[in-house]
């Protein structure tokens, strides 16, 4: 029995908290406000944050170039949405950060190619090809992917931006993409997108992870748990109602970007495919199984980040949340890819 209405179950962790006791905290998003943060919009709109004891949760739009880790360390946000591929190197450099939950069970990365040009359906097709990769984080990821598949010396990487125009113009054969995103664009442009996901081809790792500082875990554990409760409720609503999710994004939170409703719905559906797995249905949204964590550590190793699970992940909070609020576990219909 999930809180579709969000009103019934009193789900706060353990003892009841006074309204607004946790004050206002800031959540650093990983991107500007679009459908990607539908759960947060629901949590705000339906009052899940307030019910959990917050005066409010400020959603800080992220951008292209400044990371959530930095915002956490600089004290601008208490929780940040990021990815292990970025958090792990920070931890290795001495930042005391931990991942406490993960929205996406699979990373959204894929290599997009075009049926009309040079379709890349299998790993074997990649040999001798050129991939356009955005500089920075994605470069590390692709290199990890190539390493995972022993393709490091068989593929050429060139720098590109998010735009798939160079791909469509045949400047390179494959474009580093989000499954939620660029393939839809290619289709809109009249091409037949061919997708090779990284998660299913040797580089599984999670994304849209909740990152916090060790200090917060140590000193504000209850707050974090209350926060996770609200997030879970929000995302549960969002997953079930892509139309409403998109409406929030288009008309309210992302209204300054002139988003398109249909496009956002489509993205929400694609996003659902990344969030919902059998494990999630069993353990709850945002959880990570030990196997998944191990896979992540292995993938990170391939990306050149040698780190151990206990240094990066701390799933104890979300586990406690579900233990204390078993009714938060919802069984979703898993979309077929």
């Amino acid at each position, binding site marked *: 029995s999930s809180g579709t209405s969000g009103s019934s179950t009193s789900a706060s962790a353990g003892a009841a908290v006074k309204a607004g006791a946790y004050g206002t905290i*800031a959540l650093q998003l990983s991107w*500007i406000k679009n459908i990607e943060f539908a759960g947060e919009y629901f949590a705000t709109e339906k009052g899940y944050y307030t019910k959990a004891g917050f005066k409010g949760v400020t959603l800080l739009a992220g951008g292209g170039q*400044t990371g959530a880790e930095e915002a956490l360390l600089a004290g601008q946000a208490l929780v940040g949405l990021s990815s292990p591929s970025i958090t792990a190197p920070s931890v290795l450099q001495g930042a005391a950060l931990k991942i406490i939950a993960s929205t996406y069970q699979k990373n959204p990365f894929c290599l997009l190619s075009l049926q009309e040009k040079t379709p890349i359906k299998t790993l074997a097709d990649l040999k001798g090809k050129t991939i356009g990769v955005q500089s920075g984080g994605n470069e590390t990821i692709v290199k990890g992917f190539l390493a995972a598949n022993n393709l490091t010396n068989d593929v050429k990487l060139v720098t590109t931006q998010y*735009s798939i125009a160079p791909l*469509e113009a045949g400047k390179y054969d494959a474009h580093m993409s989000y499954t939620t995103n660029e393939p839809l*664009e290619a289709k809109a442009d009249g091409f037949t997108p061919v997708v090779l996901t990284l998660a299913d081809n040797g580089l599984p790792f999670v994304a849209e992870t909740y990152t916090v500082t060790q200090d917060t875990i140590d000193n504000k554990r209850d707050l974090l748990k209350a926060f996770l409760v609200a997030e879970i409720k929000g995302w549960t609503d969002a997953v079930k109602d892509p139309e409403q999710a998109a409406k929030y994004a288009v008309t309210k939170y992302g209204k*300054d*970007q*002139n*988003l398109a409703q249909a496009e956002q719905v489509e993205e929400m559906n694609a996003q659902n495919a990344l969030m919902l797995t059998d494990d999630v249905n069993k353990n709850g949204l945002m959880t990570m199984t030990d196997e998944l964590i191990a896979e992540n550590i292995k993938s990170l190793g391939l990306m050149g980040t040698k780190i151990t699970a206990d240094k990066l992940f701390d799933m104890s909070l979300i586990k406690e949340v579900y233990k204390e609020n078993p009714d938060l576990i919802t069984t979703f219909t898993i979309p077929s890819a």
Partner: protein
Amino acid sequence: MTDLRQQSEQASIEHELGDSVGLGLETGGKGRERRTLLGALHGMPPWVGAIIGIVVILVAWQIVSVTFYPKTQSIPQPALVGKQLFYDLFQTGVYWNAIAKTGGAALWGYLWGNLIALFLAFLVLVQPWFEGLSTQLAVVCSCIPLTAIAPIVTLLAPAGSRNTSIFLAALSVIFTTVVGTILGLRAASETQIDVIRAYGGGRMTQLFKVRLIAALPSILAALKLAAPAAFLGAVLGEYFVLGVDSGIGILLLAAQATGASVRLWAIALISAGVAGAAYFLIGRIGRLLTPWSAGDARAGEGF
């Protein structure tokens, strides 16, 4: 005694010669007829040239668009972009809001940057020894890697503030204005300064009565250059800020990420339009303020 001189004494200018706007318009043989093609070109009014230029650009754009990218709209046809531009501007309020927000940050950056720059330049004037220091500080401002420094500014500012945009806008203008101002403050001729010195005018009097005024054309040219730079700086800043939802940079980011190429071009043009408008506005103001140029009535008019 009715000699010839006498009349010269009485004669005054027809239509009464007062403050003169637009000096030397009729001088320098500009009106000379030339029957060459170039002569014809020179004869035409500026706005005809501007229109020809715009038409040439639009035609070239259209040709490139339809011959090379007919399908993908990577370089969308001008008409489509125009339509989008019109729609975005007049059917939604989003873009005006974005222009206002980014423009506001740009304006603050422009003000701060130029204040700092003018301060640095005037230090040189007060104490020539400062020139090395001032210009080197300005060089640092111009070449410090933005991708490295901008996130730091973001993190030092309160979340959700536009300080990074303001900062980058300021950084983008400091150097040009410092160089332009220092160049300008040297524009006064020695004899002009001599007049002030001879009457006991100190550095400050020289500055305000001569140097500053003689420097105006150069300073204004720098301020003109700085205007689009500030706007672009503010747009770039929006790629680094946290907790900011609106702005031209945010729109660009969104359009890029969603592959909305027509819209991307429309926003780019809006951005160019705003920056260009700032450029021309400052340029106009400059022309009004300095109808003369570096000490010569006809200078600045070219040849």
